[in-house]
């Protein structure tokens, strides 16, 4: 059904339609489905636990700002994941090595060799695909808090996670959490760091919408349901008035 301006004005001025929209259980359900509770649990555990387990038996630390910047310098495909990204055993091995070793244990010159040796001890080479999926999921979890920020047009430039970026986010998170920037860089999960950055943004620009946005599929269902309610209401109204 195509809605004319008269239809829409009629609906906006109708207290009965207001009640229909306010009490529709389907709209309630769609609104509730935008929250991914499994992801929320992961974020909680990352925030309070020092260790996570991936692939069933490999304990790792959450991604920290330092690890993320270091991965970026290594041109890891995990830093720019899209639907076509494929991860090699070495990509996964280096990532796992970073997640299991302290910064002072890392040496750029030998990282590939040491990573592969460590990968052997956790049987990574036999299950590269599983590691790739779980590590990519960790990246998604780390960036999830940024979904709270208002969205804007993204540039096509690849993001830069250099030392300047790392120090900037660590400085903000450190001020919000009352931690030193060094501790934030090497100990705080990236998801928590981004959470603190969102808190800072809320404080500095409170008139923006900082909320869990509906994914596009959810928005489409929401608007489709709304249009269905509009059409039903208009049809019923005009049938009654005929």
């Amino acid at each position, binding site marked *: 059904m195509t*809605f004319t*301006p008269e239809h*829409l*004005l009629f*609906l*906006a*001025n109708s*207290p009965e*339609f*207001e009640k229909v*929209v*306010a*009490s*529709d259980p389907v*709209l309630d359900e769609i*609104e509730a489905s935008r929250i991914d509770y499994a992801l929320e649990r992961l974020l909680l555990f990352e925030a309070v636990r020092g260790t996570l387990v991936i692939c069933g038996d490999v304990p790792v630390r959450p991604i920290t700002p330092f690890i993320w910047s270091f991965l970026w310098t290594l041109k890891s495909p995990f830093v720019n994941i899209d639907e076509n990204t494929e991860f090699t055993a070495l990509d996964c091995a280096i990532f796992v090595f970073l997640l299991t070793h302290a910064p002072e244990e890392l040496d750029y010159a030998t990282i590939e060799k040491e990573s592969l040796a460590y990968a052997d001890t956790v049987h990574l080479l036999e299950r590269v695909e599983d590691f790739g999926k779980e590590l990519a999921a960790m990246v998604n979890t780390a960036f999830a808090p940024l979904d709270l920020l*208002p*969205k*804007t*047009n*993204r540039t096509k430039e690849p993001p830069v996670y250099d030392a300047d970026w790392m120090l900037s986010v660590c400085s903000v998170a450190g001020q919000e959490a009352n931690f030193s920037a060094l501790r934030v860089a090497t100990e705080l999960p990236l998801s928590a760091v981004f959470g603190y950055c969102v808190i800072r943004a809320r404080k500095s620009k409170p*008139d*923006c*919408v900082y*909320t869990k*946005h*509906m994914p*596009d599929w959810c*928005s*489409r269902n*929401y*608007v489709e349901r*709304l*249009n269905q309610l*509009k059409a039903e209401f208009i049809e019923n109204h005009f049938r009654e008035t005929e």
Partner: protein
Amino acid sequence: MARQFGVIAVGGTAAITGIVANSVEFSDSIEKATARNEQGKVTDTKAYSKGVSISVRGKLDTPRASLSVSAGQTIVIAGGTYMIDSVTVSETNTEFADVSLTASKNDDSTLEAYS
């Protein structure tokens, strides 16, 4: 406040879009005149104008490519028509934009959208 449906006239009366508001906050204020006696004390106060402001957050029901909500347009919601004073956020990379806007109306003034 419960979910509410409203409409925004986009670009004068050329186009119109629905908005599902998850939050509508009202505030009102008056403008007043006072009279004082010879000692400077206020003896009479008269309210001569009343304004209502609303703050709305919600989702537009029209895909973003076809419209651009901005200040100077009008919104009909919660039984009233208001002039949009500011649109603070518009999310531009989602199909159905979320917007946060403030709008107001003074007395029974006739509202004419910016054109």
